[in-house]
């Protein structure tokens, strides 16, 4: 080992505290990067493989009832590879231990062999025997929510008759990776479950012998999905087709791909911000550290070490710190990624969600941090080696001090000599002060980023469920009923208020874009289901025309006042051009609204309703539920509070974990920066401070000079950091917008306060560390050395 290598190792050992802080900062950035990217890769690869291995369909369609013979004609559509017809029905469900009304989706399995498409993965138990009545497979999500095992039974109501189903196995389907009912915002695994039964049995129960009401297609690689959908719609129209759709509108896929999109946004934007911040700090700290070695560099030059040799020396020093930071970050990132993936398994059901260590995810992290670190080192070393050694070895010229701005204003009498030193020092090196301040501000800002998610979720839940949708539950009827049904609801126990609605599946078309959605006909005077814009202003339903989600209007590229082509996919299936009367800047979904009477006129109906929003007296819910269960036309009841609770147990849990990681990283970064800034100030000014001690200053007084500087910089950095945090939030939100989820930028006061508090705590801790070092300042040694 050469003497230079020994110097390297000993320098590293000597600055181990700082080196550790720097590599921890870098490690945080890298860990975020690796965690997000490997989680993303794991989800994507698992999903792709699951879809492929279990033959997830490409096009889906619901219809009323079509003869089996139609299947052959569907198969003949150019581009269609395989066809699976099914019988699907939603029924009321009773599970032991649950008084609330629940819904079971029954899906037929072929009587012979596995499904051609949307195959099942059997987690436990066995397949159903088609000859034995009452056997069913249950989805894992529902089974877990109710602790159901093979052998347990549930009761369903089919055509007003109770039937007992025996669970023989627990299954997973690529169709229900995320198990949520169409049209719902939140999943509710306690009250919605999927069951698979024999085709023969379901057909008999629902009058579907020799017929089907659901079809799944797979496409040839060259097929045009749009073309196939159009042809399929033509074929199914006279059988009550509700409009075929591709994967992008399939509920589970839409959610999971939205999640993947957001994760990709998170995986690129947030870690890049983290890494950039870490790199900036690394750069700042390293260049200042190298600046303190200026004399040693000069001496090496004087002995004839070349620039390249000196450069290589420092590059190795930095390289070791980078390497340890990256290694630590990559390992932590993989570990956290694995735990994140395990969390995803709680609400995304895969046969096996395997954690993928994708080196393509790690390589950019190594590359970016390396480049950032070496860029910083290069400038610092270059500055040091460019200086003629004779000059570098001279003590630095006395800095040009002058009275500071505040003093020039005639306020100097307000300040003690120590405070004046603090102020002058800050003002003398404005760039350095600014950079330190900037570094701290960045640390504060990523603390805000860490809490952004939970602020947004809080806002979304508050907006959707407290401000906009104020009902306690939503009741939907199996077929459209009349106002009489609504009056019946009013008379049920505990019902305080009823607001009927008429919903119809529609397809909107404008130029070349089309979208399936649900049209909600609402009464003009409403208390429960309110349409709000982002400023929480209520929007009135116009007597004619449509109100569209702004996101839907944008998708269809239409403006207020323009006309959109609408097909109602129900009843007499009217098709018409309808004017867009207004837009709603809402956060979720792609919704269309209309006056309930206008919709009824369109459908040539008198006083039809599809369901109603209810507020209820909580004390009487049990008797209300039991009465709702016995009302045959009630197809489903959605309980808002329950949905929010189940959401908070799953996704919110996941977001909180993510937030804990981010906040922990941001805190480490904040501490790393502030601690390093303080340490560097100390090493730069040790001599000056020792001199002050020698001439009689107390420890407290010299601490005041150094820590006073730190305090001023910290206090100055906080408002800047909060502002940066807001900007970063804005930038991040922009990247997380998806078709179905517009995220509001909300940063709560608590988030700002938290960021400021962590910064202050980091500053206090750093101050304490530095203060301890100041107390041990070796006066003689400092004065003996040259500088």
């Amino acid at each position, binding site marked *: 080992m*050469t*003497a*230079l290598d*020994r*110097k390297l190792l*000993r*320098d590293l050992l*000597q600055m181990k505290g700082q080196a550790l802080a720097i590599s921890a900062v870098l490690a945080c950035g890298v860990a975020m990067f690796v965690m997000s990217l490997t989680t993303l890769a794991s989800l994507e690869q698992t999903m792709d493989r699951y879809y492929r291995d279990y033959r997830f369909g490409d096009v889906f369609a619901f219809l009323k009832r079509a003869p089996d013979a139609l299947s052959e004609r569907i198969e003949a559509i150019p581009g269609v590879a395989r066809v699976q017809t099914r019988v699907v029905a939603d029924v009321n469900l009773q599970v032991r231990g649950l008084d609330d009304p629940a819904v079971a989706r029954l899906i037929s399995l072929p009587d012979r062999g596995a499904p051609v498409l949307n195959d099942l993965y059997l987690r436990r138990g066995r397949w159903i025997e088609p000859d034995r009545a009452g056997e069913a497979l249950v989805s894992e999500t529902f089974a877990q929510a109710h602790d159901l095992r093979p052998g347990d039974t549930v009761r369903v109501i089919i055509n007003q008759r109770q039937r007992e189903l025996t669970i023989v196995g627990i299954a997973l389907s690529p169709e229900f990776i995320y198990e949520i009912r169409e049209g719902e915002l939140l999943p509710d695994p306690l009250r919605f479950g999927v069951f698979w039964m024999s085709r023969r049995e379901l057909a008999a129960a629902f009058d579907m012998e020799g017929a089907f009401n659901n079809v799944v297609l797979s496409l040839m690689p060259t097929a045009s999905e749009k073309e196939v959908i159009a042809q399929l719609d033509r074929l199914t129209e006279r059988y009550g087709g509700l409009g075929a759709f591709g994967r992008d509108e399939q509920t589970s896929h839409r959610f999971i791909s939205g999640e993947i999109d957001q994760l990709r946004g998170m995986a690129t934007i947030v870690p890049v911000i983290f890494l950039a911040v870490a790199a900036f700090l690394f750069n700042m700290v390293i260049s200042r550290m190298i600046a303190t070695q200026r*004399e*040693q560099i*000069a*001496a*090496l*030059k*004087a*002995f*004839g*070490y*070349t*620039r390249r*040799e000196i450069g290589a020396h420092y590059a190795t020093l930095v390289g070791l710190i980078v390497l340890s930071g990256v290694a630590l970050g990559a390992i932590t990132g993989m570990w956290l990624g694995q735990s994140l993936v395990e969390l995803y398994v709680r609400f995304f059901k895969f046969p096996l969600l395997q954690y993928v260590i994708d080196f393509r995810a790690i390589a950019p992290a190594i590359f970016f941090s390396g480049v950032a670190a070496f860029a910083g080192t290069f400038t610092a070393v270059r500055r040091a080696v460019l200086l*003629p*050694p*004779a*000059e570098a*070895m001279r003590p630095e*010229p*006395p*800095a*040009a001090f002058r009275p500071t701005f505040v003093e020039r204003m005639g306020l100097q009498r307000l300040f003690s000599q120590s405070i004046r030193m603090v102020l002058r020092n800050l003002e003398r090196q404005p760039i350095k002060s600014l950079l330190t301040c900037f570094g701290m501000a960045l640390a504060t800002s990523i603390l805000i980023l860490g809490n952004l998610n939970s602020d947004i979720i809080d806002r979304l839940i508050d907006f959707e469920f407290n401000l906009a949708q104020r009902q306690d539950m939503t009741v939907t009827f199996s077929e459209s009923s009349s106002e009489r049904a609504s009056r019946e609801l009013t008379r049920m126990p505990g019902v305080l208020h009823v607001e009927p609605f008429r919903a119809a599946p529609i397809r909107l078309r404008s130029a070349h874009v089309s979208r399936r959605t649900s049209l909600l006909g609402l009464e003009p005077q409403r208390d429960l289901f309110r349409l709000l814009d982002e400023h929480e202003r209520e929007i009135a339903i116009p007597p004619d025309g449509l109100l569209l989600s702004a996101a839907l209007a944008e998708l269809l590229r239409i403006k207020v006042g323009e006309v959109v082509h609408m097909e109602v996919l129900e009843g007499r299936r009217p098709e018409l051009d309808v004017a867009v009367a207004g837009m709603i800047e809402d956060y979720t979904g792609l919704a269309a609204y209309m006056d309930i009477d206008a919709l009824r006129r369109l459908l040539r109906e008198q006083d039809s309703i599809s369901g109603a929003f209810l507020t209820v007296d909580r004390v009487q819910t049990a008797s209300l539920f039991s009465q709702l269960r016995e009302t045959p036309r009630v197809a489903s009841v959605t309980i808002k509070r329950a949905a929010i609770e189940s959401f908070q147990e799953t996704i919110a849990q996941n977001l909180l974990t993510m937030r804990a990681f981010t906040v922990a990283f941001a805190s480490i970064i904040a501490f790393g920066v502030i601690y390093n800034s303080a340490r560097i100030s100390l090493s730069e000014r040790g001599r000056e401070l020792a001199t002050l001690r020698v001439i009689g200053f107390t420890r407290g007084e010299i601490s005041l000079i150094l820590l006073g500087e730190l305090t001023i910089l910290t206090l100055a950095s906080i408002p800047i950091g909060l502002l940066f945090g807001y900007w970063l939030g804005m930038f991040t939100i922009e990247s997380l917008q998806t078709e179905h989820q517009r995220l509001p930028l909300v940063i709560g006061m608590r988030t700002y306060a938290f960021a400021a508090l962590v910064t202050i705590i980091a500053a206090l801790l750093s101050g304490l560390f530095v203060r301890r070092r100041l107390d041990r300042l070796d006066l003689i*040694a400092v004065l*003996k*050395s*040259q500088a």
Partner: protein
Amino acid sequence: MNQTTAAPARAVFQARNVTKVYSMGEVKVHALRGVDLDLYEGEFVVLLGPSGSGKSTLLNILGGLDVPTSGHVNYLDHDLTTDDDAALTRYRRDHVGFVFQFYNLIPSLTARENVALVTEIARNPMDPAEALRLAGLPDRMDHFPSQLSGGEQQRVAIARAIAKRPQVLLCDEPTGALDVKTGIVVLEAIERVNRELGTTTAVITHNVTIAEMADRVVSIFDGKIANIKQNTSKTSPRELRW
């Protein structure tokens, strides 16, 4: 002006009309205002002058640590003023040994390692232990600078400077930070190197007494050479007192 005495050997350095101006903070300093000087092979020269007279600047320019604002400096047949940084580095690496007032040891390396720092890149170095023996520090080789006294640190610096067997040894106030007794030990070491290895040696000092051990004394004042004196008899460092 100073081509006076009969040269004992060929000129190692020839400085002609050398000036140097640089800024110290907000002040422009005319460190050298036209210096002509020759240094000869094997001789021991003392550059004498008060603080700020320009002697360190001259030494740094001779040693390739700095470049003059104008004028020429030849090392043997080679013009140093036309050299770029890489060439100056090579020149320092191969030919020059430096001793600084504040030693400039690498604090994280032991005495032996500080010397090895130079021997590892030199063409024909001596063993670090031998250099330390020559500098009069044979038994503290594995101590770190912080464990050595000022005089000992300066002897490590001398060992480090001579270990590469340089053609020239340039010492900038080598005893400036030391007491008389320690200063003499250090000067003895420098004198021994000059005598035993025949290294051309230039020592900067503001201490007139030290000038007595030189072959020639060059007095510098206000950036110019004021006087050059040939010592008829050299005093041994042991007999110096100040």
